[in-house]
């Protein structure tokens, strides 16, 4: 997967490049809108991350030119501006997501993965991780052959973790996806919910599937895989 980052702030660009490269992407960085446009026109990218405030051609103009030339790669805007009009303008021009600085790296990663996956995978009815098996149609969870009863919200939480397995999901993303809490709410609740879920699917078993990545969030993966 090849990504293009257009960001004039050198440090931000470098750290994003490092982080995304380590997450397994091939990453190019452009520091001005002109360079970015040149890169985007001459190579093929699976996704473009665009800062809005850029010297020369700004992010909005760049996206407009890209879309006019028939480039349909998904675009995520990064911006320190959080006025509703800016967001609306971004989406109107055909952006796929809009992140406001400061954002957490795990949030960006989760959104990149979600965009890249979009429309590609057929959601499986049944997923297994190690000896954990989840049947989404029957809403049934078993581990090592034992039936585990989950509440509706616990099931939604597990579904989110397992559908995006191996991805680090920040607490704010979990709160918004599972409970529709789209503002900075108490993340205590997410911690409690994860603890509850662990007590049911991890605690009785030797292999722990839900990992806490401190400072970033939670991920579900098979440690032996």
């Amino acid at each position, binding site marked *: 997967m090849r990504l293009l980052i257009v960001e004039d702030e050198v440090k931000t660009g470098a750290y994003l490049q490092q982080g995304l490269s380590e997450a397994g992407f091939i990453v190019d960085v452009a520091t001005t809108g002109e360079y970015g446009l040149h890169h985007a026109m001459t190579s093929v990218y699976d996704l473009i991350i665009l800062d809005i405030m850029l010297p020369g051609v700004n992010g909005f103009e760049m996206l407009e030119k890209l879309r006019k030339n028939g480039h349909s790669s998904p675009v995520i805007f990064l911006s320190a501006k959080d006025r509703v009009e800016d967001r609306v303008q971004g989406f109107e021009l055909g952006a796929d997501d809009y992140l406001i600085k*400061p954002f957490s790296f795990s949030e960006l990663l989760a959104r990149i993965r979600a965009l890249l996956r979009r429309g590609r995978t057929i959601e499986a009815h049944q997923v297994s991780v190690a000896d954990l098996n989840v049947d989404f149609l029957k809403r049934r969870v078993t581990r090592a052959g034992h039936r585990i009863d989950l509440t509706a919200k616990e099931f939604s939480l597990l579904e989110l973790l397992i559908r995006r397995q191996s991805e680090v999901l920040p607490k704010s993303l979990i709160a918004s996806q599972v409970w529709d809490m789209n503002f900075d709410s*108490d993340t205590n*609740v997410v911690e409690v919910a994860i603890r509850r879920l662990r007590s049911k699917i991890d605690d009785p078993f030797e292999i722990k599937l839900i990992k806490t990545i*401190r*400072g970033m969030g939670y991920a579900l993966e098979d440690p032996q895989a």
Partner: protein
Amino acid sequence: MRFWRRSLTFRLVCLFVLVSTTLLISLGLLTLSTTNNHFLELDEVYLYDKELLVQEIAQNASSSKEVVKKIRNALSSQPDLSFAILDNSKTLYNSPGFEFPTHLMSQPEVNTGVVMQWLVGTQTMRAISTPVKGLTVVLAVNTLHHDHFMTSFRELIWVYVAIAIVLSGVLGWWVTRRGLKPLIPIIAKASHINAAQLNDRIPTKDVPAELEPLARTLNQMLERLEHDFARLSGFSSDLAHEIRTPINNMLIQSQVTLSKKRSIEQYEEALLSIVEELERLAITVSEMLYLAKTENHLEVPNQSSVVLESEALELLTFYELWAEEKCVTLTVASGGTVTGDRLMIRRAISNLLSNAIRHADAHTHIAIEIVNTAQATTLSVSNVGETIPLPIQSRLFDRFFRSDQARTYPGFEGAGLGLAITKAIMQAHGGTIAVSSVKGHTVFTLSFSKTV
């Protein structure tokens, strides 16, 4: 055109001149026409007087010859008077230099006593004719002398009018300047007011009655500006303070960590603590922005119908896990619908609920109660816990106010903006927020007015 728009003096002087010009010109025209009419009357009276004389003379005469002779004798000595005696269209006698135009003989005015008028060269003649013993006597005056007078009088009047117009312009300018003088202290005062002395006010005492509303309005504007300015500067200093502390923490921690070689675990620990600090900072900044936007009405609430109990119930599903862990039960009682922004109202309730859970004693009950009255729909969240002392109650809704001044709570404790945001949201909806705390029973009440 721009000058016209800009200068009040110019406008007023123009209007003044326009008014005085109209008045002076009409006055001049009136005077001229009155004088002219007066002369006409004088001529008429003079002619009728002479007509009487002619008739009297004619009565004592026996023949027309005698009539002619007597009239000639009587009228020849009259200055300014010309006359002709006609027999049908035949002229029997003419004053020297006078000739009655023969075409006037057929006019209807002849022998009726109506004044006739005609021009001889540049001179105007006025005449009446009267029948005397089968003859027609024409009596005429030359208007030359009052034409002369009228000409010079007309000139004089127009010169006066012109001078008066110019004078009215000058006077108008002077009057305007004087009239606008009371504005000068207002301007002087206003020009001295800047951010550093917003408490200054424009004096309303010595200002003319018409300008008093202006001065008062300006003062009210200053009042609002001062208030907003104070809020804004308070906001920036709060923000600076709130940001300074975590920055300081991170700076010291990073420098101490870097001061000698450490184990990987120690580096990890340091980075994690910085991440936590930064996350707190990020939330503080975004909450500050949200608060500022809400307080300054940049975030205008959508006006939709919000069912309070369903919002509360949805929030319960979010908070109930945490509440269970703290051995606290949650309930929602009754219901009501208000008009407002769903997300904002949800945020307001969420803030109250999370505070209630945080401060509730174990094995107690948190009740959300929605009450409909004629004036308002209220939503109250009550919990059992420590009583909030009265002096603290009034400060609860201040920015960055925390009941525990040091950050003693482990993990995430918010920026101390929750209640300030809730209050701002309520104000944006034209509602209020209130608190009461008695004997360990604390109730926060959101009240949505129905009259808005």
